[in-house]
């Protein structure tokens, strides 16, 4: 257990030190949102309507570009060997790495989201649903992403492949996440169900991704 905490703590420290990923993740997220906003143009009503989908899409994209951080560096420098040697259950190492990824890549952008939502003219009643949907949904992105990173561990063209593999698995999170954020904003009846389904996706990801990810790492370490 203490080993898993140590893995998470080390990754958080690394992400916060100079050259680490936490600030980069938030910056990429902001950039993606701003590019969308520029493309949509200055019409504030249109922006308000698109705020939730744009923020969710940007969150998905910034998760996607940070996936190689989950295992690749540890694989190359031998840290992963140490983790495999000392861990009782490799599945829990995958879980710990996904938690660390969420803390260092998703949490910064949840913190940045309200500011960007302001730029997108999101109505006031939309903030709660948006942040709640991001908080419930982004762990699924990190978990499924950890599975994708495990599958493509040590491969040369990992970047493109991981997007192809993870993309379809991200679809439910995106659909229910945007669904909940938009429905919550409009007070529509499907707000509750969307959030529940979003939570279900996260739970399924939490159950499956560590098992499948650990299996993938075992095969890729040979």
């Amino acid at each position, binding site marked *: 257990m*203490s*080993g898993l905490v*140590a893995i998470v703590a080390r990754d958080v420290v690394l992400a916060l030190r100079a050259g680490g990923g936490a600030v980069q993740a938030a910056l990429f997220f902001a950039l993606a949102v701003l590019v969308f906003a520029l493309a949509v143009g200055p019409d504030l009503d249109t922006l308000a309507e698109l705020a939730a989908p744009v923020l969710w899409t940007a969150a998905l994209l910034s998760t996607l570009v940070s996936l190689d951080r989950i295992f690749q560096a540890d694989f190359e420098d*031998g840290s992963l060997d140490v983790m*495999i040697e000392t861990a009782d259950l490799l599945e829990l190492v995958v879980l710990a790495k996904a938690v660390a990824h969420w803390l260092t890549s998703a949490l910064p952008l949840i913190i940045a989201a309200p500011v960007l939502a302001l730029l997108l003219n999101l109505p006031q009643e939309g903030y709660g649903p948006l942040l709640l949907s991001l908080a419930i949904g982004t762990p699924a992105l990190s978990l499924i992403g950890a599975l994708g990173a495990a599958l493509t561990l040590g491969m040369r063209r990992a970047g493109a492949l991981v997007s192809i593999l993870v993309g379809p698995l991200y679809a439910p999170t995106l659909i229910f996440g945007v669904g909940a954020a938009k429905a919550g904003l409009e007070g529509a009846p499907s707000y509750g169900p969307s959030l529940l389904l979003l939570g279900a996706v996260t739970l399924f990801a939490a159950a499956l991704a560590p098992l499948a990810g650990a299996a993938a790492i075992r095969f890729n370490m040979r």
Partner: protein
Amino acid sequence: MRTAARFAVGLRLEDVAVARGGRTILADVSLTLAPRETLLVKGRNGAGKTTLLRAIAGLLPVERGRIALTNAGSEAQDRRGHAIYAGHADALKPALTVRENLAFWAKLHRAPIARIEEALAALDLASLADQPAARLSAGQKRRAGLTRLVLSGKPLWLLDEPAAAIDADSLARLTGLVKAHCDKGGAAIIATHDRISLPSARAVIVGPEATA
């Protein structure tokens, strides 16, 4: 109670075959290692030294044959609890200080905090302990990586080309460390293509010419 029957451990390989990347690298490997013994594994680049060590460490699956610990008490089959592999990669994070890197490994190995200072001293790194690992030279990085042997407290040390990049003094220090470890009842396997000489050690050669 991982520590109870820890020291005085030996190793036996019976007709072991190991594949890597879909190709059989090693076949029909049989060897024994007694407690307190050091084995030098020699052979050319690509002969399969690393593959052998990783298989013994449990990092690679064995295709055929059997690898077993001897004199290890009840946990005899669980090699992972008894072996520590120090490979080419030093597992150092450049952004962390040497001490922080060691502290991380110590937590993974469930080692007591006091052992960090012991390991730093053993590889003459005390003066560099608070430097970021990024500033170390190649040889210093190598030594920092080798502190994992001491930190782990494991009886069976598996060293993969430990002599690479380190100077003569450090090499002497390392061989002294291995000798002391074996005197306490531990065992060590060192893969090297030439440089290390340990008068007390037995040597085997890995290579295609050595197949039965």
